[in-house]
């Protein structure tokens, strides 16, 4: 089968020790696209991009980068020939080299002449805003500056794809948002294809063209972030991306039923035995969708800034709702959910 996307992985599998870290994983990224990979700790995100970079070899599968097969049954391209940039979580800038030397190291090894190299170094450092620090050593830089250096070091090599492994998790919160935008702009400005790993879901959604969610070494779903958010294909994703309320029951002809619950839905059903999920912010006043009404007793209200988060007990079920005003504990409350917000996924245990 022809490999068409800019970065394409097919049937990747990898075991580390006795641990099957990746299983039959397919992934594709288009040219110039930014793909975020989101997944809980240990889901194999780092392992996946290490395979793409060539830092480790898959047990099975194929990888192509920029339309060229770099790993396959009879192929294993050398790391430096793959055109892959990599930004590490712990920066991994070489402490014994100055900022400029860090950037120039790979260029020199690639045989680039002095003048051109200096030019490239200056460009790269300027693009991340640390040109003035060229002669400093990494221990004279802040964490944010070190990560900028790491980014410049990779971008200076003009990679076909840049892999970023949780680049902001060691940067303090105040700087993170700012740096995230900078990275995004820089990568976009160069039209570089990027795979961005994170386990911060708001970061993942904010940053990318497409989002992929991994769990247990598998890719569960990939697509535009709002699609994953609105139409999760599993209970795991629904819950992982922002949290959701879930009810297990049956669905037939667009009507979902569970003990004491009857809701209309326009979302596609993966099976007849399903879980219906809706987000706290999808709760509407009962008059908005009278045919999709639920009610219960308030057990807690919590002010969370833009709204009140209310916990509602219906007897057998508990829901979390975002509400415009506070409701006294013990008071009865009814609400409704629009049919197009009632997503259906396979029940958790199947």
């Amino acid at each position, binding site marked *: 089968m022809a490999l068409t996307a800019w970065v394409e992985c097919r049937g990747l599998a990898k075991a580390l020790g006795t641990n099957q870290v990746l299983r039959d994983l397919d992934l594709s990224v288009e040219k110039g696209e930014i793909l975020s990979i989101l997944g809980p700790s240990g889901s194999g995100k780092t392992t996946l991009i290490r395979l793409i970079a060539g830092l480790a070899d898959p047990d099975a599968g194929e990888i192509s980068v920029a339309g060229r097969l770099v790993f396959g049954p009879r192929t294993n391209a050398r790391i430096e020939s793959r055109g892959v940039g990599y930004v590490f979580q712990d920066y991994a*800038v070489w*402490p014994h080299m*100055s900022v400029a030397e860090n950037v120039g190291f790979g260029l020199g090894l690639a045989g680039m002449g002095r003048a051109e190299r200096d030019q490239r170094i200056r460009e790269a450092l300027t693009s991340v805003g640390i040109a003035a620090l060229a002669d400093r050593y990494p221990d004279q830089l802040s964490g944010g500056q070190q990560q900028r250096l790491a980014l410049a070091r990779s971008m200076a090599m003009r990679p076909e794809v840049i892999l970023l492994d949780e680049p902001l998790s060691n940067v303090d919160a105040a700087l993170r948002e700012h740096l995230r935008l900078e990275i995004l702009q820089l990568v976009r400005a160069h039209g570089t294809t990027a795979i961005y790993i994170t386990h911060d879901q708001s970061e993942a959604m904010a940053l990318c063209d497409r989002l992929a969610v991994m769990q247990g070494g598998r890719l569960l779903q990939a697509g535009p972030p709002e699609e994953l958010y609105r139409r999760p294909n599993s209970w795991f994703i629904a819950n992982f991306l922002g949290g959701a309320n879930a009810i297990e029951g049956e669905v037939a002809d667009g009507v979902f039923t569970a003990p004491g619950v009857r809701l209309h839905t326009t979302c596609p059903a993966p099976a007849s035995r399903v879980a219906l999920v809706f987000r706290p912010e999808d709760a509407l006043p009962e008059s908005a969708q009278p045919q999709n009404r639920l009610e219960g007793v308030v057990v807690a209200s919590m002010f969370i800034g833009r709204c009140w988060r209310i916990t509602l007990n219906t007897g057998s079920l508990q829901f979390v709702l975002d509400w415009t005003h506070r409701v006294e504990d013990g008071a009865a409350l009814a609400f409704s959910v629009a049919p197009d917000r009632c997503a259906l996924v396979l029940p958790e245990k199947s």
Partner: protein
Amino acid sequence: MTIGGAATSLGVVSLFVVLVFLPLALVMGQAVVPDLMDGHWPHLSLAGLEHSLGNARSITAISHTVVLSAIGAVSATVLGALYALMLARSNVPFRAVLRATPWLIFLTPGYLKALAWVLLMSPGGYLAQFGLLPEGWDTAFFSLNGLIFVHTLNLFPMACFVIGAAMSGLGSEFEDAARTVGGSARQAWVKINLPLLAPAVVLAFLSIFAEIASDFGLAATIARTSNFGLLTYSIATAIENFPVDFQLAGSQALVLLAMLCSVLLLDKALRRQRRVRLITGRSRRPRIYDLGLWRWPVAGFGLLVSLLSVWLPMAAIIARSGARTLGQGLAASNMTWRYLDQALTLGQPANQALLRSLWFAGLTAITCGVLALLLAWRLDQGGKALRQIVLAMAVGAMAIPGVVMGLGYILLWDRVPGFADTGIYGTWKLLVLGYVSHGLPYALVVVLPAVGQISPNLIDAARLHGAGATTRMFRIIVPLIALSLVTAVLLVFARSVFELPISQLLQPTAGAPAPSVIVRLFGNDNDGLGSALSLLAILATGGLAGLLWLAARAAGRAVWGNGFDSLGGMPRSG
């Protein structure tokens, strides 16, 4: 595993086999298979073992060794614990001197301190001349007492390091918690801190026990003078005296090794039992007790320890090297340059021995440095498991007493066909090989963890930027571990200059190295020249080490720029 990886493992294993395993196996084989070397069909026999160990001398040596090691370990551990407590938890003054003392002791060989104390304590020695030696103390010193005394001063730093590290890991939170629920300070220590520190105390005790049991320096000096037979010295005499009795040496070595093994096993068993994992990597700053006026007597105690273990012995050696005779003391009429002059004049035997030792030690240090680097390089590709194995083998090899190693080397290189045919027995080459096997573990113990501390991402980043194995080695790894590497080379150098048992057993026929000459000079009542030679060896080693350090730093700066300084001792992870 790749082909390169397999070759590396093979190389490492064969290096270990030749340097450590074969010699050790021969020593043990010698004890239970008496005809092993005689060309007869070898047969297992415990009769020889029984015979060798059953005689009165062996029994005395064994019991002396056990008694000395046990008492010495107790007193050194107690002193070390008090010293560590003083440094870690009190506001004692003169901290710089007090802190430096354990390191100075650690870096100077025990037998020099022992010889210095012989000068101080002998009848008519320096202390007696100053009227500082109470009646009868001189005879009391040349016995178990003197050995315990010098061992304690020489080895308490080990306890101080181990227990001090545990104390700073412990902090004072547990103790403070005990105080808040109404415990007194004394109860907090007895009920909380002591039990928590117990593993470190036990570890210190066992290490010092092993150290004393395998010590040769004091056994060949004070113990010999006092006629206090010890295993290590007895092994050496069995080989050196005519008729050579390898069977006896092998049997006694076996007992010694068995003793060390049981210490090791005991330590393991105890550790498995108490698995309190409270000492985290996080270093807490413990509360410092304000001693008030008591800090002066406490400082006095610390300074006294420093005086007795470093300064007084040093002064004795300096004084003796410039004095015609010991008995006439510090009088001006007794001063002479003769000994220093002899030791400094090219062509004089003492000077030859000194130069020989410096040269051998230099060669050893460089060999060990290169080997450690090569291993580090190959292990970079071999992964973590191999590094752990090599490190474990190195630590194991460190526990083998020099006397046993020397015996093994004699057996292997003088008597085993193939090895004996190389003709290196009796030459400087075998001596240097012995030094290397003794020094390499220390080099590895310093260098490998430094390599292990380099974040793998730093290496991977270099691979991603197109650096091959050699480039990675010389442009990433070596600069990052440069300081550890220099430290390792200097450590091996200093240890080899003063290495006594191997020097004595593997003495080249062409001429002995300084350590055995020093001990022999003292033994022949030529302690003036012995002191002069010791003094020059210390100065030369210190001076050379300092020069090498400065040169390495300058070279590091020239090659790697200022980034070399920014590494500041320990490689960073990135």
